[in-house]
């Protein structure tokens, strides 16, 4: 079984935030009003944090894109009382909205702030990909467009794309990638099987210095950053 992971090259990242826009388009994530953003209530599947290093004359600002880290030892899965969030066999952490009771324990337990509570019901929007029509009869956790308020949401690594791609026999990582990887204009993001030594991500990790966020917590994130 493959173990999907993402590699983000911070050296190539230009901070255009196209990944965030692509994610919001692909998954119908509400963009959030300025008020919501002020109250920190917007839904973020993929967020971008701004980090400053140094003091005034010698200051550097970095933008670090942060999707869900899809940890190998996910604290959110341990604390979820309703089995609403679980780790698939391919390593993707999925949120199953039909099971979620909205206790918000996972938001408290997530070390990366990757989870958002859905405060308002969302309008149904047409799926923008005409080439891959949505299967409404599916009882899979894939939520779109039947999301309601009162549940917790998170990044899915676009597993609907991966699943469809695997069914069609396409190559994951080159032909089929998550929306954020597809949208990246500077090719800073790579997606693939971390267990496969021949995949592009494994080759990159073997050749470059890399780090993960908050490694000291032992969550083993599968989103890995290449250093600048």
């Amino acid at each position, binding site marked *: 079984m493959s173990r999907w992971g993402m590699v983000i090259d911070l050296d190539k990242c230009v901070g255009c935030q196209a990944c965030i826009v692509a994610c919001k388009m692909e998954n119908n994530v509400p963009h959030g009003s300025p008020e919501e953003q002020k109250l920190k209530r917007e839904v973020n599947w993929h967020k971008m944090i701004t980090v400053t290093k140094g003091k005034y004359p010698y200051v550097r600002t970095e933008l670090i894109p942060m999707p869900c880290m899809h940890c190998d030892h996910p604290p959110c899965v341990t604390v979820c009382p309703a089995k609403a969030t679980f780790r698939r066999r391919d390593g993707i952490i999925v949120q199953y909205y039909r099971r979620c009771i909205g206790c918000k324990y996972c938001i408290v*337990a997530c070390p990366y702030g990757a989870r958002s*509570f859905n405060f308002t019901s969302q309008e149904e929007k047409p799926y923008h990909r005409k080439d891959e029509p949505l299967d409404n009869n599916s009882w899979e956790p894939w939520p779109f467009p039947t999301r309601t308020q009162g549940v917790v949401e998170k990044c899915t690594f676009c597993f609907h794309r991966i699943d469809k791609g695997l069914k069609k026999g396409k190559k994951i990582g080159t032909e089929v990638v998550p929306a954020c990887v597809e949208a990246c204009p500077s090719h800073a993001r790579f997606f693939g099987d971390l267990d496969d030594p021949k995949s592009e991500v494994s080759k990159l990790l073997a050749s470059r210095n890399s780090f993960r966020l908050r490694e000291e917590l032992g969550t083993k994130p599968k989103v890995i950053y290449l250093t600048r």
Partner: protein
Amino acid sequence: MELKYSTIEGKSKGYKTLVVILGIMVAMFIFSFLISYLKGQKVWGISNMIPWGQLITFYIYFIGLSAGAIIISSLSYVFKKETFEPIGRMAVFMGILLMVGAMFFVLVDLGRPEKAWRLFMYFYFNNMSSMFAINSIFYTGYIILMLIYLWLIFEGNKKLAAIVGTIDVLWAIAVHMGTGAIFGLIGNREIFFSPIKPFEFLLAALTSGTSLIIITAAATFKFTSRMIEEELIFSLSKILKIIILILLIMVFVDKLTHIYFPNRDATLYLFTGDYWWLFWVFQIGLGIVLPLILLSYSKTKRTKKGVIISALSVVIGVFGERAALVIPGTAHPQPFVSAKIEGIWGEPGIFKITLWETLLSLSIVSFIILLFVLGLRFLEILPNQTNEPVSAKTNSIIK
């Protein structure tokens, strides 16, 4: 001396007005719940940064009060101290009501309360590694045990009541320590993460439970013109003083562990950030320092007034302690990277006190008080008026 219990008549004007006012407040519950359910939890003060607010604060507070009340009730039914017998039934009854209240709080706090039954499908639909799921076993068992306990006490079966009471007290300890573990096991939140948290919760439960019993006993006995023995209040206050001292040590050790090593940002935020007053004024000031002074100072420690004021300050202070855990615990931004974060959620979150959340919590509190007042009317909870009546009988509002 065999104590006999009776109901209150509930025919006075004061009693009826109280019931009506509480009834109106309970009706507000339905209204405010519908608003927050239909509109979504955006009408509350919570955000993605501070996902738990007022209702969870009340929830752990009420569980603490309940566990404290049950543990105090054991003094009369398990340890057979006759001094505490007049308040024994009341303590168990309060334990049940407060637990029911806590369950209401946590149920209402859920985003989809209609799916709460999933928590009780043990091992099938729920994930038993979650503290919430483990606690759901504790809570159900606790309520059942307390009902059996109260029934046995009403039946007068003292032998069995002692056995069930012992189990119930141990269970109450487990319940509240489990509630502490909800917070204590979260490794990424510095203020929460502590192996001592369950014990701290237990001691805070004991202090607040004892204080609430002192206050309720003094109030109900006064309003129903019953005599309360001063010895009872003073022995409770002695227990209270000792528990507050142990709580102080626990809080000190907990905060010292967090402040000693250089990664102390979150604890410094708790001490000096936006919510410093929750910690210093409520948790330390009202919850620990003021009652300790009042209960140690020779002029106030043997007066009823001094004891009741210190009990009140503990009840308020421990509520502040719960809030000082829940809100600053998540308000402090998480260090995603070891540099200053400016963008999304670099700054601490702000929790706003909003109308609907406050109304919801107040109405659940009044629901519990209403059940208590009705319980006094229909159940034999208070001891008979055979003791010497209070001299100021005309003062009594409720008969």
